[in-house]
């Protein structure tokens, strides 16, 4: 649970949105209308924050915070 909260807060921080706008099962495009350059920013900045590498095709506008958390968890292992 702690990692999920960290990921949600990191997404909110990177994209300058309120964390309450993000719903764990909702696609980023549906919840906050994320655009393609913001997705690149998200890949790079999440990677830096969690010490991993995320390719731009691994998370998309259709990813949910839960899916992103699962990816971060897998890469950290």
């Amino acid at each position, binding site marked *: 649970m702690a990692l999920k909260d960290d990921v949600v807060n990191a997404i909110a921080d990177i994209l*300058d*949105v309120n964390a309450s706008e993000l719903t764990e099962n909702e696609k980023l495009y549906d919840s906050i209308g994320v655009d393609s350059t913001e997705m690149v920013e998200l890949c*790079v900045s999440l990677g830096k924050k969690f010490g991993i590498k995320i390719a731009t095709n691994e998370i998309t506008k259709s990813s949910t915070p839960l899916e992103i958390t699962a990816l971060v968890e897998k890469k950290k292992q």
Partner: protein
Amino acid sequence: MKERVAITGIGVVSPAGLKKETFWANLKRGNSFIDEITRFDASLYPSRIAGQVHELDHYSHLPSRLVKKIDVFSHMALVASEQALQDAKIDLEKVDKKRVGVFMGNAIGGWLFAETELRDMYIEGREGVSPYMASAWFPAAPQGQVTIYYGFKGYSKTVVCDKASSALALWYGAKIIDEGKNDYVLAGGMEAPITPYALLSSNTCGQLSKNNLMPKKAYKPYDLYRDGFVLAEGSGIVNLEKEEHAKKRGANIYGYLKGVGFSSDGYHYSRYSPSSESFEYAIEECLKDAGWAKKDIDYICLDAEATVMGDYLETQALKNVFGKELSHISLSAPKSMYGNLLGAQTALDLIVTLFSMNHNLVLPTINYEMNDPYCDLDYTPNVAKERKINKALLFSRGRGGINVVLAVEK
């Protein structure tokens, strides 16, 4: 033009104020808004003074999520566009957004954003560069940001031709209205050259004043001891629509764009031709396009490069074109108060001229102290002068001799 193109809304972001009322009130006093550069350490630059815009954030209602993705030149354009739309009292819920366009000019693009990212690229590699860089730096970015923010889908364009950029953008915008392609056009320009690299490259052109010890006295066009212009940042945006359209919806009309004249010196990449012939041709073409006689002109808002040759050539062109009629025409360079906005300079010249028309007041050319025998006209030195203005010309010259003259009518 077949139709009269009316100016019905004004937005201004400038060193002399971030709202049209403040801008006008400040300029009427004839004070200088030039200061030492404070944004970064410019102490080793030959010219380290400028007209800077402070407190932009206080006048912006843009979400921080957007502001972090754009350069300051887009930010200024968004603020000025918002003001122009509000001033024109356009109900954005009711307009057909496919018939609203944006025509804007700038000379150098968004360097404040670009410089930081390029530095990061050389330090951290390609992953150090923000993906927002791709859409933040280039000259058409403000056009894109304004159209995206308001959802405008009409014909739009960005014009880049050095200091004549916004003059041409204003003209193309008026042409599109005249041709009936759009109902509304936001037209003007924006420039943000107060950044380490943009200032450096502007310095290398050798046309900036080095009077760093007396910033407020530095920009002194037509004075014997002039040593170049002073850079400034800001944005001027006006709303254009057909006269009939404006009257039908009861809009306030500040004035009309009436004609244009263009020419190129075809002489050197940065200097003007030592003959003012080509510039004179642009003035004559503008008069012809507007259908005006020389004696009809009340006021000319000057280009005022404040270099030895620039001011001399402008004076020569005035004498050669207008001859004896010059004694009836008021001349001035209000930009001596807030600086030269490069690609956005004519947008602010237009706004100043519209206010002058509506308040019957010619703003002065400040810092004029010593007469130059080669620049011996009455440039309205230091103090504003009451005068009724119905017809005016705006002079704009880009480096290398890109000449644009606009005709504006009350």
